[in-house]
């Protein structure tokens, strides 16, 4: 294989690693927002016996 054809492997490696790292960051941030939403919903929800 020529040197030029190797560039594709380098680009693919950086693209794949970048996508994976961004995916990890997005997953953690999305989970944080989901927990905050749930906490706000629960802390704002009424307590005690269910209304009839």
């Amino acid at each position, binding site marked *: 294989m020529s040197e030029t054809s*190797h560039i594709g492997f380098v680009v693919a490696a950086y693209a794949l690693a970048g996508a994976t790292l961004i995916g*990890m960051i997005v997953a*953690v941030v999305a*989970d*944080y927002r989901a927990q905050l939403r749930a906490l706000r919903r*629960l802390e704002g929800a009424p307590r005690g016996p*269910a209304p009839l």
Partner: protein
Amino acid sequence: MPNLANPTAFLGLVGRVLPYLWAATALFFALGLWLALFVAPPDYQQGETARIMYLHVPAAWMAMFVYAVMTIAALGTLVWRHPLADAAQKAAAPLGAGFTFICLTTGSLWGKPMWGTYWVWDARLTSVLVLFILYLGLIALWRAIDDFGRAARAAAILTLVGSVNIPIIKFSVDWWNTLHQPASVFRLGGPTIAPSLLWPLLVMALAFTLLFIALHLMAIRNEILRRRVARLVAAAANEGAAFAAGPDLIPGARGA
């Protein structure tokens, strides 16, 4: 020094530290990528393909480092019973899986032009694949058991059993004949890699490490919040509140 065993104190510390940590992570990634892509010379044999090293090697180091962190956290759960140890262990597993995935895929993309194949069942590659499967198994175990305490103990035992794989990965290139090259940075007698290639590699490794620390702190914070949500749901259910809908109110209650 805040009491890190106290989740509220831990959350306060995370809130204060994270902005600086993210700034340092962005700075070192920018510097590392600039050095790796524009400053470091091509390898005299491998040419431009050697630039994959600046992702592959830090990801490989992180794959093992994260498992070492999880092993210490497993000891924290089983021996010292630290209140945040199981949260730290659970939070680290998906991050370790991500770094191991990067290590395997970039290694495969490096192997094809250099070795002529994407994969060989040699000791180094196989033991890293075993590490990846271990991470996936731990994530699955957390998801399979609803009770946080039981899941933590089971995951801690599996983590400790799996830790035997870390020295196997490290020394596989010395113990067996492998297609993978032997260690060229962390070895007796010092690095064999040229400084012009070593410095970009070390900067990228620091960037990966900072990213892991930032994400790990955030993921532990998520775990603490998830348990607060679970306690509130349980309390609401006990009080007979109308919204006692169970796990539907807990995002990722099954181990996300």
